[in-house]
């Protein structure tokens, strides 16, 4: 949490947005599935403690499902409650499915008549001209690109949906995300616009904090090739977030770019 506030402070001129201090998560009921028409149900929420829905639901508007062949699949029975959203996916094809969001947006602030103002949350780059008054000064615009995705495999793991797109912050799965067991190290390469993201910080948080004294969070770094080596001491669900800031902006007027990658990984007992 403190690290995130520090990042927020880095965004010059931006007040620390409360949303930055919370974790967005997708939590599947299962990730390794047998049978031909299994269902997986997913909780989607925003909270501090993992994986407890006690703050805000995640909106489902941008959640998409990718079938093992890479075509778009169906999100079913979606519902948004006070603290969480929930939806189902029927795994009617064998292989690895991807479920998640990919969002692009902007954050920004300006001064008007000496008063600090912020762009509304969810502002689109296309509306910048309308959103910033002609007499604004000290305009600061930050571009955001975030992914939050989970993987579920029916039968044998496949890799079609894992293929990086070459945009934003992504993971090249050197270890398959549905082939994780405690006691075995996993390797993942983080990519920014398709190129290895060396030396970035990755936060790894085991679920179930309510039932222990220490959060057991770890902040790990990718190596010179963008590779993160992570071991999982105990089975369970783990939340992982990586962030990267750079100046490779695509929105006119933006001075910096913030890239986020989030996933939830299920680690089984060997």
């Amino acid at each position: 949490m403190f690290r995130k506030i520090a990042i927020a402070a880095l965004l010059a001129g931006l007040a620390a947005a409360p949303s930055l201090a919370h974790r967005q998560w997708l939590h599947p009921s299962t990730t390794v599935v047998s049978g031909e028409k299994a269902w997986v149900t997913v909780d989607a929420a925003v909270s501090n403690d993992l994986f407890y829905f006690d703050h805000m639901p995640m909106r489902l508007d941008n959640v998409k499902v990718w079938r093992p062949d890479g075509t778009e699949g169906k999100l079913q029975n979606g519902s948004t409650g006070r603290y969480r959203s929930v939806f189902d996916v029927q795994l009617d094809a064998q292989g690895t499915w991807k479920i998640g969001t990919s969002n692009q947006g902007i954050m920004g602030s300006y001064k008007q008549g000496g008063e600090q103002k912020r762009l509304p949350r969810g502002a689109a780059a296309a509306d910048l001209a309308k959103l910033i008054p002609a007499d604004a000064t000290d305009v600061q615009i930050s571009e955001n690109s975030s992914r939050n995705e989970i993987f579920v495999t029916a039968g044998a793991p496949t890799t079609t949906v894992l293929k990086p797109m070459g945009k934003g912050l992504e993971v090249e799965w050197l270890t398959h995300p549905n082939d994780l067991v405690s006691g075995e190290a996993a390797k993942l390469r983080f990519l920014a616009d398709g190129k290895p993201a060396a030396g970035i910080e990755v936060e790894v948080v085991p679920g179930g904090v309510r039932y222990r004294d220490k959060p057991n969070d770890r902040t790990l770094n990718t190596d010179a090739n963008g590779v993160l080596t992570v071991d999982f001491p105990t089975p369970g669900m783990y939340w992982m977030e990586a962030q990267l800031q750079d100046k490779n902006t695509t929105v006119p007027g933006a001075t910096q770019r913030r890239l986020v990658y989030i996933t939830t990984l299920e680690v089984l007992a060997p």
Partner: protein
Amino acid sequence: MRKDLLAAPVLLLSAAPALAAGIDVSLTIPTLKVAEYHRPYVAIWIEPAGGEAKTLAVWYDTKLKDKEGEKWLRDIRTWWRKSGRTLSFPVDGVSGATKAPGTQKVSFTEGQGALGRLAPGKYELVVEAAREVGGRELVRLPFQWPPKGGEVVKAAGTAELGAVTATLKK
């Protein structure tokens, strides 16, 4: 003519023992005093040192409609990761119904069915049981192939499996 026809099966029979290298497995499914009992799902497979696993048998609920019984195959979790997830069910000569508590005997013959041919080397025979509303347990029995004949490898579970014995036949 008549004589030849009779002689042929006799010859085959006498040749059979020499061909029947294989593994006899005896495993005990314990009788459990529990409020809700379901027969365990059981997988039997062999694993060469550092090689690909070969499933010899998997016992699960094959009778449920719409192949619903396959839903819990992944709960035989070590087997599922090593071998099960690459199979499509039912597997001929491998899939079978769940078995009642007691000692179950099953034989695998080299060159036939699921066992097929084994390259010489070190192997483990693995038996894993997972029970609905119950636990999971796995036992490993190391062996060398080809066998000298008559080797007996023993192991035992403590919860979901009783004694497991593999007898190697030359």
